[in-house]
């Protein structure tokens, strides 16, 4: 890195990559995220690959709620189906989506189809099959750990399928490691202490999540929040002022997985692993 010319070339490259990365990820899907703001929070455009991370498996309820909330906004009369997929032997780990609970949450259970596969390749096959169906609005896949098969190629494949099929994929992931992935949006969702019931502060109230956007850009007004919001679920996403202590302070840089190449190139885009 001696010569100034080299430095300059590097700078130019960095700037160029930053320009690419800064572009909202929807050029591919042809959708414009900037003007989509439904139900109080963004209802992202269809045809995107989302990764919804949470640090611990015990937060599984929060991520499922967040994914279902987003998926619900994608349901249209001609796209009524949402698929939930998981490995059959992981049901006891995090629990199965429960009909009365879905109803209670505001998600009509008849929209949801559960798919329980034996192996990871079958699960990925099922996601792709579902994405190619024109009646599917979204696929939520619950994936524990860091399966080897789920690499950049696979996520690129899924994101292309999502674009061409017009259905969104939400990969619910657990842990702090991040692989290289072609996901357009990567969220980190953690549950937050709710504000308490209107009449009794000792009763649990509506779900509340601390949401971080780790990768991808939404729009300028959302970007002002620094990619960090506190969301309430009142049968629809609702912003809450961050008067509750932020659980993680400023954006934490998650640990990249060994072997994953961090691409710390663009300015301020440290986590685009």
């Amino acid at each position, binding site marked *: 890195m001696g010569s100034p010319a080299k430095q300059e070339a590097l700078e130019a490259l960095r700037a160029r990559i930053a320009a690419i990365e800064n572009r909202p990820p929807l050029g591919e899907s042809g959708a414009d995220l900037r003007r989509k703001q439904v139900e109080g929070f963004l209802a992202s455009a269809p045809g995107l690959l989302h990764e919804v991370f949470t640090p611990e498996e*015990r937060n599984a309820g929060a991520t499922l*709620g967040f994914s279902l909330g987003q998926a619900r906004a994608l349901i249209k009369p001609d796209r009524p189906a949402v698929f939930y997929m998981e490995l059959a032997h992981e049901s006891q780990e995090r629990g199965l989506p429960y009909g009365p609970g879905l*109803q209670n949450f505001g998600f009509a259970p008849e929209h949801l189809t559960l798919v329980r596969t034996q192996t990871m390749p079958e699960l990925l096959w099922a996601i792709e099959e579902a994405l190619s*169906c024109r009646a599917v609005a979204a696929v939520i896949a619950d994936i524990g750990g860091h399966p080897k098969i789920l690499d950049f190629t696979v996520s690129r494949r899924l994101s292309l399928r999502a674009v061409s099929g017009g259905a969104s994929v939400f990969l619910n992931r657990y842990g702090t490691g991040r692989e290289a992935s072609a996901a357009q949006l990567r969220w980190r969702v953690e549950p937050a202490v*709710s504000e308490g019931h209107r009449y009794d*502060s000792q009763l*649990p109230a509506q*779900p509340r999540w601390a949401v971080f956007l780790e990768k991808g850009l939404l729009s300028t007004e959302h970007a002002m929040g620094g990619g960090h919001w506190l969301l309430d679920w009142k049968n629809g996403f609702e912003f809450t002022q961050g008067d509750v202590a932020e659980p993680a302070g400023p954006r934490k840089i998650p640990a990249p997985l060994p072997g994953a190449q961090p691409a710390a190139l663009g300015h301020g885009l440290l986590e685009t692993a």
Partner: protein
Amino acid sequence: MLNLPRWATDCLKRRDPALVQSGRPFALYEKHKSALKLVAVDEKVSGHNVWPGHNLSDARALIPNLEAREIDRPLIESLFAEFADWHSYASPIVAVLPDMSAFGDLALDITGVAHLFGGEGKMLASVVGRLEALGLEAHGAIASSIGAAWALAQHLPGRIVEADGNLDVTLARLPVSALRLTPEQVATLQQLGLKRIGQLYDYPRRTLQARLGASLIARLDQARGLVDESITPRIPAPERFVERRFAEPISLLDSVLETARDLAIRLAADLEAEGVGAQAFHLMVYRVDHKVMCLSARSAGTTRDPLHVTRLFAQRAERLAGEFDAGFGIDMIRLGAAEVSQLDSLQVGAFDDEGGGDLLRLHDRMANRLGETAVLRTVPVGTHMPERAARLESVIQPAKPASNAFSDRKRPLRLLPNPEPIRVTAEVPEGPPADMTWRRVTYRFVKAAGPERLGEEWWLTQAALTIDPPPKTGEDKPRTQKSRYGWDEEDEPPLPRRPMLFRDYYTAEDDGGRRFWLFHDGIPGTEGAGWFLHGFFS
């Protein structure tokens, strides 16, 4: 009707060429009341006038170089069953008559089939000739009733009696043992001097019934075609089918699938002409060494779309690619459709091309590839017991109009299939929980709501509120396969251990904002009472 009197010895000889090369007489024996009796003999043994039923020691005395083995009935029966399946190349309805013998007799319903072979005589000759070419001794006969065909195949092989023919005259000359009777009945008839079937025609029926039982009368009427007798086909008989025979056996899986596609197109044309579609499809692959492979695919909606049907089979085949074994080649493939029902001929594709139909096809593909229990929908059940209030059923089953609705009580988004035991402390006895230890982690609750008391549904005997132990890690698969919350309905109903159980459910939020659904089971302080975690809210 085909009769293979030497099936047991012939099939073993085919499996073990050494038996043929040795050239020794071969017989199978069985232990019968502390004596070893012959049950099957080959032609060399019967040449010495030794028959099944003789003692093994007598036979050894008569035939010094006799090769005798103990019979392995399950093996021979299963070989015969496969052999029987293979005969569905000739007729879709093939049956073994287990009330006489589990092997040796094969019934084919050739109604409306014989003309494909150029007539009944040619069909019989071709089927029997094919077996003789395989080295099997076979006798065949065709008659209008199963009983008569059996009698003819045993005693007058090669005889064909037309439906309107003189069946009674032909049968009259046969011995009474041709009527599928028990040995005791035959012996009694012999004692009475009734040796031929013809003698029974005019004998007073009441006397016969009194002395020999109603079964004799039934057998006699069945043979004469006076009462109907049905056979149970071994392979589900498809309602419509198309098939292709190959001049040269094929062996590649790809060729099989290619043929399946052609057949599906032909089948679709046939079904369309009738204005019907089907829900179940069977692809039967006939190997030259008389084995049949049967692939079945089900569709959630009635269909006849060849593309869809082909795809279902292609996916099925993908899964068993490793097990595919063409043996010495495949000489016929048949595609059958079952569960046929009306399908509007207006529909060009399998379903209409918008939304719903697409989804049904997706369900079919997934269920065929992943298994029917892998693709599920949630159905409400009219009960307030949490683990039973939602049932997961396969999307392949036709959806019934919902008779129940989900309760609008506060219920968790995720439910653990098996509630997990936790340790809980409460500030006051029987009060809301203050903290819990679950999976060796302690959670401190800042908010809690409850209790919601759920009692046992005493009006349902099997609805006891019992807890299944949570599965251990690395547990065997069938259990984790459970597609429901908690126990299956098919399981043995857990009997109530104690009268009147109830659970107190609490919703609790910990200091990290996680919301849990936990319950206390039983009366506090009594044996078996305890806390369990049952679900997670978002």
